[in-house]
């Protein structure tokens, strides 16, 4: 995940709100040619603000998924246009999520702490994001360990999955969650107190305001185009 992060990310709350707005408005345009103008405008804005690298890394994956789901949609509806629109929505998801994917999670956490969001939300979010790669790694480790005990791994063998994969996997996850909970408490974390500091304050800059203006202008422009 760190490889997708940008060096100079936008203000986290602006990234979060922009990400949601792009998705919602994009969905409105998804049945119109205007969606392509929106994607073009977003590509230009992302290029200006240094988000092309993460976009280019996630886009191939989303395009692949969009082709598969779009094709499925075309088969069930027997309408080519419906298939294209479905694919467009998946690609739109890449454009809306890239702002969040490229943001170091700690920046968002610190931003929310500064804004006095509940600690359970900020830490929960950080721990959840951190656990995604951990879970992937644990899955790989357990599959390797199963193999080393002579168990042939197959997702279709329910007994094998339950016994040789799920049991160690769940035990490990429960164990890790317990240790993590104890560790954060021994490191002074408590839900009941607001007495905490922020090591690196996240501040809004002119660049963030410029990004917001450009994004709103583009969305308005595309909306006018859509109305006309």
């Amino acid at each position, binding site marked *: 995940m760190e490889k997708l992060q940008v060096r100079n990310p936008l203000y986290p709350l602006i990234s979060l709100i922009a990400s949601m707005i792009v998705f919602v408005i994009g969905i409105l345009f998804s049945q119109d040619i205007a969606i392509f103008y929106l994607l073009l405008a977003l590509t230009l804005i992302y290029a200006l603000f240094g988000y092309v690298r993460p976009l280019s890394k996630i886009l191939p994956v989303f395009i692949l998924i969009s082709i598969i789901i779009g094709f499925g949609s075309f088969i069930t509806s027997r309408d080519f246009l419906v298939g294209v629109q479905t694919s467009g929505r998946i690609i739109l998801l890449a454009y809306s999520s890239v702002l969040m994917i490229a943001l170091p999670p700690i920046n968002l956490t610190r931003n929310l702490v500064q804004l006095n969001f509940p600690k359970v939300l900020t830490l929960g979010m950080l721990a959840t994001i951190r656990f995604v790669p951990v879970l992937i790694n644990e899955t790989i480790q357990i599959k390797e360990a199963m193999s080393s005990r002579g168990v042939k791994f197959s997702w279709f063998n329910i007994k094998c999955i339950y016994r040789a994969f799920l049991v160690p996997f769940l035990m490990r996850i429960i164990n890790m969650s317990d240790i993590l909970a104890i560790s*954060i408490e*021994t*490191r002074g974390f408590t839900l009941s107190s607001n007495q905490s500091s922020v090591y690196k304050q996240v501040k809004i800059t002119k660049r963030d305001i410029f990004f917001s203006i450009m994004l709103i202008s583009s969305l308005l422009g595309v909306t006018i185009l859509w109305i006309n």
Partner: protein
Amino acid sequence: MDKLAIEIKKLSFRYKISNSWILKNIDFQLKYGELVILTGVSGQGKSTLLSCINGMIPNIIDGELNGEIYVDGKDVSNLRVSEISHLLGSVLQDPESQIINSKIEDEIAFGCENINMPPKKIKESIDNATKMMDLDKDMFIRTLSGGQKQRLMSAAILAMEQKILLFDEPLANLDIKSAHILLSALRQLADKGYAIIIAEHRLELVYKYADKIALLENHNLSFYKDKDKALHKYDDIMPSSIESLSEKKSCFIVNNLSFSINDNTILENVSLDIKKGDRLVIIGENGAGKTTLLKQLARINTPTTGSITQFITSDKISKDPSLWFSKVGYVYQNPNYQLFMPTVYEEICFMAKSKALAEKTLADFSLADLWERHPQSLSEGQKRKLTIACILAMQPEVIFLDEPTVGQDYSSLLEIIEILNKYHERSEATIVSITHDFRCASLLANKVIWLENGKIKRYGDSRLIAEYFISQREL
């Protein structure tokens, strides 16, 4: 009279699920400026005692607790763990599970932020802690080895600057150099007035840094009057006789093996010839590529370039994991991954040559009484023994062991090594092990590979072990 850092009066504790007391009438005092090593056989209550001090017992772990505990003069019986954490820092086992950030700097800052340390002071503390633990604060945590993660968790606690520190087996994943980095730093802190308790099995490493050595035995705590006496029981440990590098048939021939993940090269142009019947020990610092090499030999991972030729079985069998792993046994560093059957007995019978052999092996490892238990309900030390027992009951021709004695007390360590060596004598199996433990390496090796930065630095007989460990001490 000076205020004590920790004072324990008549402390007794038993777990909710147990009828017997694990700690009974313990009295203990720790002064500021003292570094005390807490030692004892596994399961005697070292971690339990630390958990009572840092408040995990009774706040998180249930049980019956009697007696009084004072930390920096304050009665902690009614304080939460997070409140006690302002008074003392605790470094727990299993660092991998405790990390929530992606960068070293942010992970260390986490605790400091929680205790409301000003940002300027946090920066200073991070710089000091990373310097002390020899870490680069800008590094991403995913690139760290197990030992570096252990050092990171120590740095995360040191940065919080509590004057009382508890360490629960902090050397478990550390190579000798890293262990001495941590221990020297702790000694310096003790000299500056910090009070430190370290629960640790590897006495030969820690004893010279300690002011006192406490022994937890039969539910009671006592101190060695002369700390050197704590080491006497290791006097009989001498490196095994040096066997000649005789000409035997090859078991594995490794040719120009390299392995990389993304742009990170872990092994580079490794070539070696492992003979059948060798007892090979791979040594090297954390992150040198030891586990990666072991996994390559066991065919768990495949090389990026180069080749490994095996002479154990046919190529067809070697490509079928269930057949290959009946010839080759692999014991993971973390036993939890390899245990999945409903009982200890079924676990060992899963791949055993026969039920009789399975039962005998369980008895050899002193696990026979636990045959009905769920493997995941055992202690970490028992789980590790069980995974080794499961592999030996298969009677493999090759055994790969990744840190087989981590967290084992002295008698368990000797028990495991003796069983492994007897198996080797009987079957002439090839045993390839990784260890950071001098005692274990000395007793398990007739040949040694010294890895450094993914390359073979030295290859030789067991004399190399002493050379390696001495070089690490001098660093």
